[in-house]
């Protein structure tokens, strides 16, 4: 990969600028009405660079990244699949980009039609009765879901239900969401084969149970076989079931959360429906609900009346948990998901779950054959699986982190490491359906090479990466000596 790139401020020269991009200055007289005490006294120290300098700088920076377009990204629980170019191109048609969020419905029937159809398709693939599109990320959708569960109990006068149950292997967003919704978290363990411990669950539910948050397949890469019993136990205790859609890719077209007994869910459109991760976002965390939660959906929602589409707002949904974004969430992301779903169609949707599962099980068997240890060897992998390197850590003093860093040298993004927390030295591996057999075989070869290196020249693995723009970074230093903004005097 290319080497490092200067910070943009180091290119800055006073008086330089991409002036072809700027509007004409109206003259200082146009600013005479602004009172001096409200005005800025000194211009902000933004970089002063030419257009070509800026273009080269940011192009070079982009080249320091791994991305799906350049590398295989087997990140468990993140569903890093190909983001089709058509989704971007057609979501960025000029009229879509120029449309103001408060433009009247008369000047948005095309956009609103897409949103309505997206709601309908998402209902169908999840088995839910209502969908709202405005949450802007998975965690935002989780917030909406738990807030709806809370609102449902409160509307029934059941004010004491404030406990959210999560399995100990859950994503951190689940307990953090419960806290944001004013609930408290109760963790339940999973048993040795990766299913929720039903006895512990039965002991945990009670009159204070608001609900349970589950991912299925779970973060352990296996299908929760006791799901029907889990649903029965929680529902009989008066709680509701929340489905964290992080792993929906595994079951798309095969089984629907609504059919498993879930009352409420979010979908990560940036995972299952292939909108880009963008280096950390934007996502979209649409929520779906069963009939009893429909009055509480966040606004706005698109409704169809005859041939026309319109927004539903507060007056249409007086019990709504309210508004979660200034406008209607990440509309451009939603358009990309809509295009993706239309491109796939019904049969393509089924193929996603099938081939994601095929790829994961193939990769697992190949890695096992190469000597790696599966965390749940007797289980069928879902769309992802866990390999534990605890033997390598114990015998060779080479950790999961070392393997992850060495993979970067060999041209593969690292799998998810050290999550879930309950499996020691784990790699959570999710190949997705868009990778070919050749890529999976190459990944197995890379893992085997690292295993051999760990035995023969372990230092090479422990000190990896060697070929990236930087070596391993000192996280401790970063946190102890905070350097969060650039200054000319910043020195190490």
């Amino acid at each position, binding site marked *: 990969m290319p080497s490092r790139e200067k910070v943009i401020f180091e290119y800055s020269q006073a008086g330089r600028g991409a*002036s072809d991009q700027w509007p*004409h*200055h109206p003259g200082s007289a146009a*600013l005479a*009405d*602004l009172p001096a005490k*409200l005005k800025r006294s000194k*211009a902000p120290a*933004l*970089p*002063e*660079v030419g257009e070509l300098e*800026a273009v080269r700088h940011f*192009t070079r920076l*982009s080249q320091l990244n791994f*991305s*799906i377009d350049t590398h295989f990204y087997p990140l468990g629980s993140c569903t890093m*699949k190909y983001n089709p170019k058509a989704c971007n191109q057609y979501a960025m048609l000029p009229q*879509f980009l120029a449309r103001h*969020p408060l433009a*009247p419905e008369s*000047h948005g029937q*095309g956009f609103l039609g*897409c949103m309505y159809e997206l709601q309908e398709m998402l209902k*169908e693939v999840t088995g839910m009765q209502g969908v709202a599109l405005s949450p*802007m*990320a998975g*965690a935002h959708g989780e*917030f909406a879901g738990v807030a709806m569960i809370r609102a449902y109990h409160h509307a029934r006068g059941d004010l004491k239900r404030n406990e959210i149950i999560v399995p100990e292997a859950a994503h*951190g*967003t689940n*307990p*953090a969401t419960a806290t944001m919704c*004013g609930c408290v978290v109760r963790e339940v363990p999973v048993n040795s084969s990766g299913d929720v411990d039903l006895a512990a669950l039965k002991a945990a539910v009670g009159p204070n149970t608001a609900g349970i948050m589950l991912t299925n397949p779970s973060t352990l890469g296996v299908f929760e*076989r006791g*799901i*029907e019993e889990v649903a029965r136990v929680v529902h009989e205790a008066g709680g509701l079931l929340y489905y964290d859609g992080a792993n929906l890719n595994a079951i798309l*077209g095969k*089984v629907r959360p609504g059919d498993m007994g879930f009352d409420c869910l979010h979908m990560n459109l940036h995972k299952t429906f292939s909108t880009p991760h963008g280096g950390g976002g*934007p996502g979209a965390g649409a929520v779906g609900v069963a009939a009893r939660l429909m009055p509480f959906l966040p606004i706005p929602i698109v409704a169809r009346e005859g041939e026309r589409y319109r927004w539903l707002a507060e007056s249409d949904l007086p019990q709504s948990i309210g*508004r*979660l*974004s*200034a406008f209607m*969430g990440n*509309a451009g992301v939603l358009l990309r998901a809509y295009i993706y779903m239309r491109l*796939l169609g019904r049969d393509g*949707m089924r*193929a996603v779950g*099938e081939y994601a599962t*095929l790829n994961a*099980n193939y990769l697992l068997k190949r890695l096992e054959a190469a000597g790696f240890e599966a965390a749940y060897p007797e289980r*069928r992998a879902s769309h992802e699986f866990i390999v534990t390197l605890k033997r390598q850590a114990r015998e060779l003093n080479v950790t999961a982190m070392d393997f992850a860093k060495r993979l970067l040298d060999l041209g593969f993004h690292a799998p998810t490491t050290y999550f879930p927390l309950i499996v020691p030295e784990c790699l959570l591996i999710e190949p997705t359906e868009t990778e070919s057999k050749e890529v999976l075989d190459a990944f197995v070869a890379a893992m085997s090479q690292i295993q051999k290196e760990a035995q023969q020249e372990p230092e090479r693995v422990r000190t990896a990466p060697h070929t990236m723009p930087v*070596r391993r*970074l000192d*996280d401790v230093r970063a*946190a102890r000596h*905070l350097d*969060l*903004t650039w200054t000319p005097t910043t020195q190490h």
Partner: protein
Amino acid sequence: MAFIPHTEADVAAMLAAIGARSIEDLFAEIPPSLRGSSLAGVPEALNEMEIGRLMSERATQDGTTLSFLGAGAYEHHIPAAVWAITTRGEFYSAYTPYQAEASQGTLQTIYEFQTMIARLTGMAVANASMYDGASATAEAALMAVRANRKSRSARILVPTTLHPHYRRVAVAMASNQGLKFEELPYCTVEGVTLPASLGKYQGEDITALVIQQPNFFGRLEDVDALTDWAHARGALVIAVVNPTSLALLKPPGEWGSRGVDIAVGEGQPLGVPLSSGGPYFGFMTARMEHVRQMPGRIVGRTLDAAGREGFTLTLQAREQHIRRAKATSNICTNQGLLVTAATIYLSLMGPQGLERAAAASHARSRELVAALTRTPGVRLAFSGPCFHEAVLLLDRPVAPVLKALAARGILGGLDLAPYYPELGPALLVCATETKTAADLERYRASLGEALQGARAA
């Protein structure tokens, strides 16, 4: 199909390696009673040509308009280079930069962004983005409750001149944790929050005061007096600011005698298209002493094993993946790609270009107000300076007038009746540097005709 590259031979070889007879066998652990959904509601696939045709038709249906809408989302010129680079696959299709060595491009971009936003707002530290301006305001209120250890009340004073949607989002996102939002009235003559109206809170425990500058009406608040009032009473100050305006207006880090504690805002004006409301991004900055109470990702510069500079996510113990139920927020995915666009935008604009965009927007909006208020039946609602928006009062209901304008392809602004009924027929209008003299004249002439038409009807 479905971007799946497998040949039949691949599938056969893979199933053989697994020891399964069919793909269906791989789902054997799922109870049969749960399976078999038909997906009847999902249409058959379209190919790329067909979806291209469909989306072009939908886009054409939405049409092209001459828009004077603002109210939290603003039409500015976006340099061509911004999205040409932002949509490069290496930015567009990259993951969150947890593997720092493979993500230096994203990490350095965020570090440059944090620096630019901190300088623009005059604050010490910025995070790597929130979802949008409204959710950033809600998170700022939650952060203030954590940061203001002397206050026990969790009471947040919110002027009614704060964007009405922001107020609703703050209630939806923060009241579950016991925060109480109390609305402050505005002066009906000047359209600003009067420091004198705060008298009733004298001696009470207030956790924080929110101040939007420019406010929802486009008017400029007396930010120094409001900031000092809050600080004198032990309350923190949360600024909600328009980033373009900061090229002209005093940055929140300099409000009052010691600056605000947290400054947030909507980043959309910095190179992000209107796009029906998103994706945008919220920015958040704060005093250094509050950095550990911030939500969201933060990038820091450090050294690598060879002693060379590099970038990494830092202070992650605040975040949900480590702190879980005790995290500062549940936020994980943020609006990274929009931050990339904004960083490129600010680099191309620089201090001079951003000042020109702000000054030209201010000038155009004054010209718009001058032109429209020459029309019979139209007057300005509030006295005093604005940034690039203003409230006009009409002599008849706004909705039919806007409808008549829309029929001519003009989006004339936002009808404030649903939000501020006490104002009567009030219209919030905005003009930025994108509007020409001919655009303003077209609006003026059309408004005159629309009002005449309404009178005749």
